[in-house]
């Protein structure tokens, strides 16, 4: 009995040490998995722990149709800013459950996210972002600032966002909003 207890204690101690070493390597962000990530630069992506989440602000079309409204949602954890940005955008462009209404054109997928050292994020969306856009200045503004604010409001390391479509720079999505340069966070489009 005493021997079994000793073995169990040893295994527990080994597991405890392994967890300590793992946490020490991950740094403080991993110790607060429910807070927004505040990484300071791009780091190699690593597979996130299964089921691990952070809280993020996502944006949807407000009831008045002329502004966005934000809701807090659990988003899969990503290792590093770029990985976390990908998870946030993936959650943001996923089909919204009623009564939420998304400003992202249906069928849009995320191709890639790149973040520069200066904090400009480049979000490469599939061609549906442009081809399936319903048009209208308000619709386009809300589409653009859904993505811009989703990253800048949740990731302090991201200061501006430029949208790409199908790997290329675009002038606009629907003829109105200038997408030739990164756009800074703009919460005036949020209620």
């Amino acid at each position, binding site marked *: 009995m005493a021997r079994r207890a000793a073995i169990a204690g040893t295994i527990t101690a080994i597991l405890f040490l392994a967890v300590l070493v793992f946490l020490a390597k991950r740094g403080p962000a991993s110790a607060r998995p429910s807070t927004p990530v505040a990484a300071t630069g791009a780091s190699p992506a690593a597979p996130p722990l299964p089921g691990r989440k952070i809280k993020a602000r996502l944006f949807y*079309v407000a009831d*008045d149709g002329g502004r966005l409204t934000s809701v807090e949602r659990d988003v899969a954890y990503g290792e590093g800013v770029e990985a976390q940005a990908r998870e946030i955008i993936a959650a943001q462009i996923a089909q919204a459950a009623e009564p939420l209404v998304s400003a992202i054109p249906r069928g849009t997928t995320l191709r890639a996210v790149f973040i520069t050292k200066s904090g400009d994020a480049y979000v490469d969306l599939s061609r549906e972002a442009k081809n399936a856009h*319903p048009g209208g200045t308000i619709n386009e503004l809300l589409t653009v600032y859904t993505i811009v604010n989703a990253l800048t409001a949740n990731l302090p390391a991201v200061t501006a966002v430029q949208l790409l479509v199908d790997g290329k720079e675009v002038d606009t999505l629907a*003829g109105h909003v200038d997408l030739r340069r990164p756009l800074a966070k703009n919460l005036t489009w949020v209620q």
Partner: protein
Amino acid sequence: MNAGLHPVSRVAATAALLIVVAAALSSQTAQPPALSLLSREGRRAVPLALVNDQEFVALDDLAGAFQLTVREESLGAVTVSYKGKTIVLTPDQALASVGGRLVSLPAPPSRNGRRWLVPVEFISRALSLVYDTKLELRKPSHLLIVGDMRVPRVTVRYDALGAAGRLTLDATPRAPATVTQENEHLTIKFDADALDVPAVPLPSPPSTGLILGVRNVDATTMAVDLGPRFAGFRAANQPVDATMRLVIDLVAAQTDAPATAPPSPAPPQPTPPPDLPPSFGQTASAFRTIAIDPGHGGDDEGVKIPDGAKEKDLTLAIARRFKGAIEARLGLRVLLTRDDDRSVPVDERTSVANNNKADLFVSLHVNGSMRPGTQGASVYIAAFDRDAAQAAANHGERVPTFGGGSREIELVPWDLAQTRHLDQSSAFADMLEAALRGHVPLAAKPVDRAPLRVLESANMPAILVEMGYLTNPEQAKTIPSDAFQNAVVQALFEAVVKYRDTWSPGGTH
């Protein structure tokens, strides 16, 4: 460039007049007109002959002009050589072999005594392939341009606009022109090497007393002879695709006597909206030109609803009504960035306004929302981030001046031109909001700022107005109606009048 054109240069001194007068020649004789060869050295004429209604040119004449060697071979073939390159012609065959490559001709070569004649198309289809200088044949004008010369084709049109009139001269490819008044005519000087223009540029001059006719003066100059009712003019160049359009607005002197002739056909003008204020007439204000931009067009349909109206059609319809109201009631010059269903790049829209020094830019749109309940008009002005505004403010550069020294000039990047006009744009947006409020439903926030592409490059006060929501079922029914469109035009008109009355060249209100 024209090393092979010495014979041409020998007649240069006698060929000061480069304007093509082929049409006039054709009317004087039953013979086909001569082909005019235009080069840097001058002009020379090459005779043409008619064979079975086809225009032919003698190979001997081409040989003299282009230093060709023409030889008749023993088997009946004719070879035309130039610097080691050979064209082979075969009698009875409408073909030419150019370095082994066959090109078609509209007719076989024809013998006339000792001379061989070839269809005039031989020049563009065969000779141009072996000649070392560009050859451009303009068959309708009987013109052959040798080398890289700027010879725009110029067409002239006159439109009566009530008591006033408008001359439109389209120069293709683009060649800007300057207009000056000298006594009783306007002189139009084109920036070109020569002009391709009919002998009588305006075959049916209007009899409204504003102008008496349009005539050619010299190689690059035309003149408009002014009538007794002429009182003034405004001229502006406006690029339209590959064409430079010179628009000369003619102002009539005030007179009690009505014009004696009915106005010539004018572009269709929509009915002005009802209940417009009384005519304002000409004022001392220097506020002259408004650019109206009907949003979208062509493949870019804008907002559309199933089995319903399209934004591109609505913006064009309202733009035409707006233009008609402004021209008829205010006498201001109005530019449309498009006047048909075609796609216009964003930069071209602002180019029309910038290049014509418009005093105001109004972009017309119809909105769409993911929420069908959203409705109402809103007015947008451009928004720039702080870095862009600073970049626009810091673009000074020193340039040398005539006589030595230098001076600083202000350079503003094209994309940031609007940064200098935001205060005035905001003032006009407020006026338009106030005017719209009495006529159509307004959005929850009727004036807003946004990074809108079409406004950023406008080098004058500029706004974009979303007149309503096509995605709102109620507005989808009303926006296409005459009543709604007249109401919007009425509001736009009132805002323009108010803005004009407070406008000053310095841009302050």
